[in-house]
């Protein structure tokens, strides 16, 4: 009986970062078992919720530890979503020229592993490709070639990488989920030419979810790195609006409004009084 409950608790403790688990897992498990009513086989919902919340908060705090200044980590944090957005923006190009997709993958890989100096040349190459006269590579098929918002996204990534490369800080490893997402987008671009409402909806859901996590992490740590990353992403996402005529419908207004509000939250939260003890 206790064994099953203990196994449930150990699974819930996975919410905590490994270092914390190793140092405190035993004691937490002991207290959890003590605090559970006798004869229970599954954790009470209250405890489960508190563990997940506590574990995620610990992860957020662990993210702010380390020798890097917060803004360096913030810049690094902005890169994977920007690169993914650029990959999506270059969807048609990748569909027509598979090798460009490989370039984007080769860019995401060192970025996720924190190797700014390896990523920089790839980023510069990609930015030059989408900015040059559209002899062999027209980005945004069907969109005016004189467009600046898509190349801007690529150059922004290169600029951020240049700053990180010059500084030479050791960067954290980012989540491998970014690699999986890139592979998914590239795989889809390889197979299908259709991008419709489900695609847009999926993107909106992912963006809102990630921004939500950024707000939560900021609330727990009062650190500015997520604000920096979110703001950079928002600017990159909004650039196409400035370039092409914007037809406001309730859907686009609520979408942009939500993104803007969440980003604003990450900026404002650290300025409020630190939470009381």
């Amino acid at each position: 009986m206790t064994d099953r409950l203990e196994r449930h608790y150990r699974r819930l403790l996975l919410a905590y970062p490994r270092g914390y688990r190793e140092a405190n897992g035993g004691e937490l498990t002991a207290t959890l078992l003590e605090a559970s009513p006798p004869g229970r086989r599954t954790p009470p919902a209250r405890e489960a919720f508190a563990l997940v919340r506590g574990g995620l908060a610990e992860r957020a705090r662990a993210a702010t530890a380390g020798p890097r200044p917060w803004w360096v980590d913030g810049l690094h944090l902005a890169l994977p979503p920007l690169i993914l957005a650029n990959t999506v923006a270059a969807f048609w190009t990748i569909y027509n020229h598979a090798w460009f997709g490989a370039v984007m993958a080769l860019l995401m890989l060192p970025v996720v592993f924190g190797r700014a100096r390896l990523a920089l040349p790839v980023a510069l190459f990609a930015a030059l490709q989408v900015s040059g006269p559209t002899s062999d590579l027209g980005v945004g098929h069907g969109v005016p070639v004189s467009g600046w918002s898509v190349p801007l996204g690529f150059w922004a990534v290169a600029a951020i990488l240049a700053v990180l490369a010059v500084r030479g800080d050791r960067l954290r490893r980012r989540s491998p989920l970014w690699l999986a997402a890139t592979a998914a987008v590239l795989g889809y671009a390889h197979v299908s030419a259709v991008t419709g409402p489900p695609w847009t909806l999926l993107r909106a859901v992912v963006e809102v979810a990630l921004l939500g996590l950024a707000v939560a992490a900021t609330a727990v740590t009062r650190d500015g790195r997520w604000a920096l990353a979110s703001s950079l992403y928002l600017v990159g996402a909004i650039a196409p609006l400035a370039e092409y005529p914007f037809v406001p419908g309730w859907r686009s207004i609520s979408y942009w409004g939500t993104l803007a509000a969440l980003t604003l939250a990450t900026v404002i939260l650290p300025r409020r009084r630190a939470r009381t003890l």
Partner: protein
Amino acid sequence: MARTMSEPTYFILAALLDGPSHGYGVIKLAEQESGGRVRLAVGTLYGALDRLAGAGLVELDREETVQGRPRRYYRITPAGREAVTAEAERMRQAARAVTRRISPRTAQA
């Protein structure tokens, strides 16, 4: 540094005023002392203990092994004692603002 203390924090510190205690001990005592209002989940307790330790209000007393599992005892620091006493005094003064204007006979029904 006059910052209000949250209710769970107050009762965690109050629970430790009697002497060092371990995790579950603090949970039980906090629930008792607060009249059942403060029911700490284990995840919340340890988050609060980490914060309090970081602020220097609580520290590790000792570590034992009970039934093969580690058990840590925590104790309140002098700074913690001061903080919780100040908070209790603050609440007492706040309560007085009301209680001295109300007497049992003249209180509205």
